[in-house]
Every structure is written in structure tokens, then in C-alpha cells.
């Protein structure tokens, strides 16, 4: 579904990782770990097609959903409408209610996004990923700002996605439950 072939990533003239190859199969998962600045976010952005690798190719034309640092939801809109904008683009407006339930945000559907807390905002961004219905999920630090209950919801949603033949690529510096996931460890090279 997603395949890295000898990818090299350089940022600001510094090589972050070199010759990285792996593939994600339906139902598969990969966990990218490493210290701050090791290139975890860059790897996710390369997988999303937002960043060009210095060398190597990314294959796979399956639609991807990206969870990045920013929630990308319109601040002044109520949560359900902000999610509805993305759902309309994805042609899946009926999926919003289910995604709000899966992230325990059903009660906040009418609350403007700007009033949400850090953790709620993170869950809202994750609800956008769920509602999008893309087979490949690219999650950059999905556990940031989540309490243990919300982390459980996140892990359950990932498990359901994989059970439905979806694949996930997760970058995280905190432990996250991903059964049978391949681990990709990035090391910070000394400059």
C-alpha cells in the first residue's frame, strides 16, 4: 500500500536518514521512533508526498490521511462543521458523526474549534483522519496531549482500521500499543 525504496532525507544540508526501505501491507503497521530531530516528522511528510526525498522513491497510490502537528480545522467553525468541510472534500459527509463518537467528541459537535483544549483538538484532528476513510493513515505524534483514556480510544481506532485492512505509519516518541508493528528506529547522526 505504501512502499519506501532506499529513501534518503536531507534537511538544511544535513542527512537525517539514508537508504531507508520498508513496505506497508494491508493491515500492517510501522512505528517510527527516535529522539527529537531524528527526522520522524520528515519521514511522515515524505510518505504524505509533501516533502521530496533527497534520493529514493515512494510507491503506492492508495489514498492517505495525514495527522500532523496542526489540527487544520477552521477555528471559528463548530467542530462538526469544521470536520464536515474535509468530509465534503472526501465525499464522506455521513462519516463525521461516527468519527466524533469514536473519539468521544460527540457532545462537543456544536462547540467552536477555538474553544477546544489541546487534547480535544488532537482528538478532533484524529476524527478527521477517521472520517476521511483513507486506507493508509500517516500519524505524526498522535499521542501528544492525550490522556490515558483518549490514548486508549486512539489505539482502539487504529486496531479497527487495521482489522479493516487499513495500514498505519505512526511516528511517536512515547509508547503506543501497535501489535505486530515493524519498528523503524531513527538515530540522530552527529553533525
Amino acid at each position, binding site marked *: 500500500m505504501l512502499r519506501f525504496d532506499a529513501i534518503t532525507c536531507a534537511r538544511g544540508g544535513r542527512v537525517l536518514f539514508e537508504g531507508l526501505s520498508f513496505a506497508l501491507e494491508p493491515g500492517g503497521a510501522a512505528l517510527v521512533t527516535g529522539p527529537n530531530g531524528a527526522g520522524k516528522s520528515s519521514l511522515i511528510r515524505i510518505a*504524505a508526498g509533501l516533502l521530496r526525498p533527497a534520493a529514493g522513491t515512494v510507491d503506492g497510490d492508495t489514498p492517505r490521511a*495525514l495527522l500532523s502537528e496542526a489540527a487544520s480545522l477552521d477555528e471559528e467553525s463548530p467542530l462538526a462543521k469544521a470536520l464536515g468541510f474535509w468530509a465534503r472534500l472526501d465525499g464522506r459527509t455521513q462519516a463525521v458523526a461516527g468519527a466524533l463518537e469514536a473519539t468521544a467528541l460527540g457532545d462537543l459537535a456544536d462547540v467552536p474549534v477555538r474553544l477546544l483544549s489541546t487534547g480535544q483538538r488532537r482528538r478532533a484532528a484524529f476524527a478527521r483522519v477517521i472520517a476521511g476513510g483513507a486506507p493508509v493513515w500517516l500519524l505524526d505524534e498522535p499521542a501528544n496531549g492525550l490522556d490515558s483514556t483518549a490514548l486508549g480510544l486512539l489505539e482502539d481506532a487504529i486496531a479497527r482500521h487495521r482489522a479493516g485492512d487499513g495500514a498505519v505509519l505512526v511516528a511517536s516518541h512515547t509508547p503506543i500499543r501497535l501489535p505486530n508493528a515493524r519498528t523503524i528506529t531513527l538515530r540522530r547522526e552527529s553533525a
Partner: protein
Amino acid sequence: MMGAFATLIARDIRRAWTGGGALLPVAFFLLVAILFPFAVGPDAALLARVGGGVLWAAALLAALIPVERLVAPDLASGVIDQLLVRGQSAAAIALAKLIAHWLSFAPPILLAALPAAALLDLPMTTLMRVEVGLLIGTPGLAALALAVGALTATLRGAGALAGLLILPLAIPLLIFGAGSLDGGTGALKLLAAVSLLLVAGAPFVAGAAIRTSLD
């Protein structure tokens, strides 16, 4: 069911109006028209003679106001990332933004030109020429604002720099726009040509700028 492109345009227009951002250029435009008679004195004949040019200069300055909110907020909030991941091209995103920006910028300015013309005591014929000229010229102004907004999106305090970039590029619009006030269609045709050129080029310039700012 709206297409993705129409959804993008609708979102940008809604954001322009709900944020109050669409009203600021109009207020600015009217303020220039109000201040000008104070500066040159209440000489009706003089005001009527220079008033058309004043409205053009006011429209040009008003076009600078929204530059910072056209691309930068969406780049910072990751909205553009999300659109690109969904397979939208950067140029298509820029074109949607251009159309939305023109739709929320030009009609209010065209309307505000009516009270502004009254403040400057413009004759009806001049007012009509200003309106026709602005109708043709505002797409070019919107295109310039978008392209410069995208080019300066990742810079801090880009507003002043955006003004320095836009004003020289807008000189042809101003010359042909003000030139059309004498009557005749020659200047209008040149105005339309410049405006068309800017509209045709801006989505690609802005798209390339958006792509570059991702790295």
C-alpha cells in the same frame, strides 16, 4: 453535491466574511475617499477632475489590506498540507483562492465606489468609467495580492514587504485604469490585457510559492 473546487471557494468566501476581513478593504477604500477632500480642500471642480484617479489609487491601496490573510493562515494551520495530501494541485488551490478573493473583494469595492464618488462630487460619466475600469482591473489586483501573499507567506511581518512588492507591479493597472477615465476604449483594452495576464499567471506563481514553502 458540490465539487471539491467549489467547496474550497465557498470556504474561503465564508472565512473572508465571518472574520470581518472582507470589510476592512472597503472601510479603507472609503476612508481614503473621505480623507482626500480634507487634504486638498473643498474645491468641487478640482475634486471632480482628480476624483477618478483618487478612487483608483484608493482601490490599489485597499487591495493590499487582505494580502496577509490570503495564504499564510492556511499554510500555518496545515490546511494546505491536507489539501495537497488529498491530491489537489497547488495551482488549483491557488486558483480557488484567487476566485474566492475576487468574489469577496471586488463587489464590495464596486459598491463602495458609489458613496465615494458622491463624497468627491464625481460626475456620473466619470463614475461609470471608474466602475467599468474597476470591474476589469480588480481581477488583476486580486491576482497580484494572491501571488504576493503566497510568496511572502512564510515571512514574519510580511505586510510591509507585500506592499513594496505589489505597488510597483500594479503600476500598469493604475496607469491604464486612470487612463480610461478620459473616455475611449484604448486604455480599457490595455487594462483588460494586463489584468488577464496577471490572472493567468498568478495561480502558477502562487502554486509554486506554496510548494516551495513546504520544504
